């Protein structure tokens, strides 16, 4: 009797979950190959200045207003929220500690990255998506240029180098706005604010935030360029690519934040065992 192979076309909940998992694994594999291709080109050919500088200007300089607003409000919001709790325990003077530690280690890098995923990631994805649907990417190939080397590598470099710098800027603005709000509005002594901050915030807190932002920058660049490169036809396709770039970047930023936070804390415990670790 010959084997009777049939395609399973059932559409139960389990089948839907299975299809979703397969799609996610395929997407992860595709993004990984895309990233490896990009790294390959990064190693063999550094982009020309006339290609790199405009991208850096777009990603770095034009993001400064967004970063000022983000950093400024994070610092003040942290001060407002923490003040009430600290006031209940009569520890208002130590407000600077919690504002600055939270800002440098966690909220500064994450919120800056999320804002940049929205501003830079979506715009890169829409730009590359438009180039895809108007055949400009094919035209690059036809003219002897590699689209990944020409379009993705400069954007990756700009995000990889500038997002940590923008994060430092957001941190600085957040620290200043938190200090200003705490001292000028909440009435905390400036001396106590900085005294406790100095005692409890160390360089490792600052650098762990910067290490995270390097990963966030790379994630935003790779995911956004990947979605743009695989944009479907039409305005709807480009819009969808831009939305996916933001959503995927946001989800991966949160996952990386957890993973890197855990690893950096463990690393701290190994390097400086006398200090506090997670476990």
């Amino acid at each position, binding site marked *: 009797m010959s084997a009777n192979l049939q395609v399973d076309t059932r559409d139960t909940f389990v089948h839907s979950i299975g299809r979703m998992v397969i799609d996610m694994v395929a997407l992860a594999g595709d993004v990984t190959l895309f990233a490896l291709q990009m790294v390959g080109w990064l190693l063999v050919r550094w982009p020309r200045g006339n290609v790199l500088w*405009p991208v850096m200007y777009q990603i770095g300089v034009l993001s400064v207003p967004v970063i000022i607003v983000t950093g400024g409000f994070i610092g003040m919001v942290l001060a407002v929220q923490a003040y009430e709790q600290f006031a209940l325990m009569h520890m208002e003077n130590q407000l600077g500690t919690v504002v600055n530690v939270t800002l440098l280690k966690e909220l500064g890098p994450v919120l800056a990255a999320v804002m940049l995923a929205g501003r830079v990631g979506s715009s890169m994805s829409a730009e590359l998506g438009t180039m895809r649907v*108007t055949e*400009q990417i*094919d*035209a690059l190939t*036809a*003219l*002897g*240029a590699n689209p990944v080397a020409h379009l993705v590598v400069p954007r990756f470099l700009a995000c990889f180098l500038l997002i940590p710098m923008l994060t430092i800027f957001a941190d600085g603005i957040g620290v200043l706005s938190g200090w200003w709000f705490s001292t000028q509005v909440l009435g905390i002594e400036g001396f106590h604010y900085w005294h406790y901050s100095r005692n409890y915030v160390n360089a490792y807190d600052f650098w762990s935030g910067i290490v995270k932002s390097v990963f966030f920058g790379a994630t935003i660049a790779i995911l956004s360029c990947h979605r743009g490169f695989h944009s479907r036809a039409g305005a709807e396709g480009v819009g969808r690519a831009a939305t996916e770039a933001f959503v995927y970047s946001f989800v991966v930023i949160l996952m990386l934040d957890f993973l890197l936070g855990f690893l950096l804390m463990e690393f701290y415990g190994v390097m400086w065992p006398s200090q506090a670790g997670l476990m």
Partner: protein
Amino acid sequence: MSSYLELQNVSKHFGDQPILRDVSLSVQPGETLVIIGESGCGKSVTMKLMMNLLRPSSGRVLWYGRPVCDLSSREVVRERLQYGYLFQMAALFDSLDVFENVAFGLRQNTSLSLPEIQQRVDACLKDVGLRPELVSRKMPAQLSGGMRKRVGLARALAMRPRVMLYDEPTTGLDPIMSDVINQLILRTRDREQMTSIVVTHDMHTVRKVADRVIMLYPLSRLQPDEPQIIFEGTAEEAFESSDPRVSDFVRGDAVVRLKELLAS
């Protein structure tokens, strides 16, 4: 002498959707091959397969008798420069002005000095009837459809290709500008001894430029054993074809097609 470009039993599908099935054709040096067919029959896909911008699902593409799949990626990039491509909507780079668009391939692939590039770009713009001093610094968004097509043609010609591929060169243009583009195709062919492949459904273009015509038919309306190339011959033979699918198409007679559409 081996043909400049050849497809051997090429099939292409996107996901579950077949576009081309077992298509074989070759282009001889100096000839102008025109590929006609309804929208969606795979004409543009055929052009992209010829340029290796898409890879065939099965079958082979040969450049100068050599299978493209046997070439290293560096050889593919080098050999591809012998083929110029005019895209359907010109595909000019939005972020670059006209000069930078035309100079792009030269900057990317040659060691020409800036004055030499300037000279080549100006000559190419003049060849397509554009005045360099007026258009060089304009951005693509500031150009009309006909000007964009001509800049796209200048950009392709700047690399001095041996074969030119035109993807629907007259689509979206008024009759006068369409004729300008047709004349440019002829002029380029005659001056540069260029081999040309033109994809179009503009019968004016077919009559004007074709040495040989091929007609592709959509797979969805073919029987599994029918060939996808339903006609091959001269433009005159296409107009006199006894096959109603060919004669209806070249005459623009939609009665049979409308009946099919309404029935479906």
